[in-house]
Structures are given as C-alpha cells and as structure tokens.
C-alpha cells in the first residue's frame, strides 16, 4: 500500500524565524484521492501545502528541515529543479489570481512556457481544460477578453483550468472556495469530484462540511502538529484522539 503514496512526508519541520510552525510531520498522501487538511486557523495547514510545491522558499525567514518525497524524489534536495516540481502540481489559492492577459492566454500560459504543445494544438487544449472545469459554455464567445473581467467564481474555475493545462499530477487547493459565493463554491467542489479519478487532490479547508462532502482522506492539524490522519469516515465517525473528536464535533474551532 505504501508504494502507492504519491507524496510522502518524513519528519518535516518548518520555522518562520523562531516560530516553529510545523512540528515533525510524518504521513503519506494517497494518490487519486481527495485529501483534506483540516484544523483551526494558524495550525499550519497552508504552510504544509506551500511545502509541497516549495512556495515556502519565498516566505520571509522560512527554514525547512525534513523530507517531502514526490514520486520517490526528495523535493528539498539541493539539486532539484523547482520548476519541474511545480509543474507536477496545480495550485488554487484562496482568492483567484488571473494573470494579466486574456482568458485564452491564461489557460495557454502553462503549455506555452513549457513548450509542451505546438501552436495549432493550443486552441484545442484551451477548450479541453475550460470544458473540464465547466467554464467553456460561459466564456467561449469571449476568449480574447481580459480574464479579470470574469466574475470571481469564474476566475477561480479559470485558475483551475490554467493549472490543469500544465498537466500536473496533483492539485493543491488552499481554501479555494473561501472567496466564492455558494453557487460558485458548488461548481468548484463539483469540478474536484470529477477530477479525483485522474489527479491527487490536496484540499486545505476550514469548512468542516466541505471536508465531509469531498474528502476521502483527512489530515487533522493543531498548533503545527499533525494530530491524526486517516480515511475520512474514520476521522469523522470514530477518531482516536480527543482533540480530533472535539474539532470535528465543533467543540473547539
């Protein structure tokens, strides 16, 4: 079973200056599942996510110890090409950030910089990924318009399509619906359900009900520690730790 894990975290510690924000995390993230990372704000969920694609490198005074293995390769090894790691993972952030270009160019950005598609293949690719995120019908008539003119909900789906166009193996999502209205949130959740057969999805969320709706596997974090992790039904129905039980039943938040 262990061989299937796409991300293996081994004794991962992160400090921001003197603050120890991730404490000795060791766990595996199963492939082609939705893994939800839950926990109260400030517990280190986002930092953990930022370790997976090494965006943590850009944070002020961040120091990382330990290993994160993606497909068996330690991504914190000194000779690793960080762009190749990031190419394996699409990121969806709390607020959508369209790039300052047209809807079409946003989706085409990844294929263009990676040179993975010929000019004539890009058009069909853009359509494919916009369809995958259920955005095609809404934007097909205005692909050349600035992406910033879309609604926030549409922008978030565009960001997802843009990430998928890089052909990643995983999708990292950091509270991807927190800026969205309920209808747009449902559209994103629906997209995740459709995608999990093909991608490993890691979803940071502070919305317990969202985790219950989507997650196959759950990490519960508290104060920088991974308190408990396991299949979703186990974490939600019969958690081993008292802390987890209190959190999932809403006693602590």
């Amino acid at each position: 079973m262990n061989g299937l894990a796409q991300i293996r975290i081994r004794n991962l510690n992160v400090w921001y200056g003197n603050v120890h924000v991730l404490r000795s995390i060791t766990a595996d993230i199963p492939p082609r599942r939705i893994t939800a990372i839950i926990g109260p704000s400030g517990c280190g969920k986002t930092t953990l996510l930022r370790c997976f694609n090494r965006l943590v490198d850009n944070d002020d005074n961040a120091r990382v110890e330990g290993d994160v293995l993606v497909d068996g390769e330690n991504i914190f090894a000194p000779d690793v090409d960080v762009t190749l790691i990031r190419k394996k993972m699409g990121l969806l952030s709390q607020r959508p950030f369209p790039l300052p270009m047209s809807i079409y160019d946003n989706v085409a950005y990844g294929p263009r910089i990676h040179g993975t598609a010929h000019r004539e293949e890009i058009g069909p690719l853009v359509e494919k990924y916009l369809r995958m995120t259920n955005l095609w019908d809404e934007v097909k008539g205005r692909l050349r318009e600035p992406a910033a003119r879309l609604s926030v909900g549409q922008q978030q789906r565009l960001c997802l399509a843009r990430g998928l166009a890089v052909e990643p193996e995983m999708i990292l999502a950091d509270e991807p619906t927190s800026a969205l209205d309920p209808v747009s949130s449902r559209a994103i959740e629906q997209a995740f359900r459709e995608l999990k057969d093909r991608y490993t999805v890691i979803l940071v969320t502070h919305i317990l009900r969202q985790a219950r709706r989507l997650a196959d596997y759950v990490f519960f974090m508290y104060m920088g520690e991974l308190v408990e992790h396991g299949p979703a039904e186990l974490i939600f129905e019969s958690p081993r730790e008292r802390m987890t039980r209190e959190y999932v039943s809403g006693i602590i938040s």
Partner: protein
Amino acid sequence: MAGGVAEEKAALLMMRLSCLAVLSTFLGIIGMVVWRGLPTLRLEMLFRTPSAGFYMGGGGGVLNAIVGSLLMAGVGTVIAVFMSIPVAFYLNVFAPRNSHLASAVRISLDLLCGIPSIVYGAFAFAVMLMAGLRASLACGTITLAVLCFPIMARAMDEVLRMVPRELAETSWSLGATRLETALRVILRQATPGLVSAAMLSFGRAVGDAASVLFAAGYSDRVPLAPTDPAASLPLAIFFQLGSPFPEVRDRAYAAALILTILVVGVGLAARRLSAARSRHVVR
C-alpha cells in the same frame, strides 16, 4: 463629541486648502507661460535657428534648442529605461529576501534622487575633463541619462512593489521560472506604471538646465553629430530671460511654452500608448 466635529472640520479645511494650492500652482504656471509666451510664439520660432542679432531682438527661432533638448532627453531617457528596468526587476523579483545589496541600492537611489542637478553637471564636467572630452550632444545625453536614472529606477521600483505578490506566486506555481514570470506576467501588469515612471524622468531631463550647462555646451546651430555642442530649451530660456531687450525676454516665455507643450504632449502620447496595453491589468 462637539470638539471632535470641529477638529474634523478644521482638518478638512486644511486639506481642501492644500488641494486648492495644487490647482492654483498648476493654473498659475500654465497661465503665466501662455499669457506671456503665446503672443510672441511664431512658427518661425519652431523651424529656424537663431539669426545674427537674435539675442538683441533679431529674427530666427530656437530650432537648435528644440532638437538638442529632444535628442538629449529622448535618448537619455531611453538609456535610463534600459538601466532602470533591470534594477527594478532585480530589487523586486530576483533579489533574495532581506538582501543587503538590495537595501544598499534602494538607499543609494534615494540619496541620488536628492542630489541637485548642478552637482551632476559638475560631476560630468570633471569626468569629461579627465577624459579630454569637449561639451557635446553625446556628453549631454549621457549626463541626462545619469541624472534621470535614479529617479526612474526608484519610481519603477515602487511600481513593481505594487504588483501583488500572489501574481508572481501564481506564475511560479505553474512552473514558470523567475525570468519567465518577470517578462510575461509582472512586466505586463506593470507596463502602465513603468511608462509613467519613464515619462516622469523624461520631464525632469528635458527641463533640466544645470546638468547640461557644462556637458552639452550651447550652440546656435542644430547639432548634427554626437560630438557637436548642443543647445537645450532650458538654457535657451535662461539666456533670453537675461537679455536687456524686452522682445527677447518675451521670446523666452514662448520658448517656455514650447517646452511645456513638449512635455505635456510626450506625456499624453505615452499615456495613450500604455492605455492600449493596460486592458489586461489585474486590479
């Protein structure tokens, strides 16, 4: 509570008065230049060089100064753009966090911006003497480039700082390198601001008299080679204003009007240009 309201009213009054000062300064300067300059502005001023006796009220124009100013400030600005953009991108995208080099550069730029232009002129003059160069169009151009480089680099630094960090992270998370991110995303987002920064320094360069006084010299002829001495509009204004003849002094205001129109015209043109590119800017 009543005291609070009075305080607010007083503060508001102060702010409004200050805003009024901005408008009246603007209108005052433009009004004065137009009022004194327009009556003496002839087409001849734009298309002819000074004739014999120009400085005693004779015929001719300031074509020499217009060409000199446009060439020196225009080329100088272009040189400064190519020097400033790498600095601004290094400071904001490439420099490691808390980089000592970056903070040293920022402090240097701040200090350089505050140095009066006559000091740049004197510096250029000293270098030219050491190198055995005479006052010329090329030396004036380089002096103006050096003069407006810190202003432009500092302004561009501020522009790039305003680009949301998440925009760069978005591009990185798609597997783009820093250079790809800089050229394809940040440059696009920042283009309107970068154009304004370049315009601001063009305005400074074209209007500066002190730094080109020694570096470019002055000549009644249109400069045809980089080694020719070159006139500039600010110096043309200065020399004519110092004349005892009232008609020559009036012509100084006409030259000032030409200079003002030039700066405003170039600024508006650049604005039009960057507006076309700002369609995609993310706010």
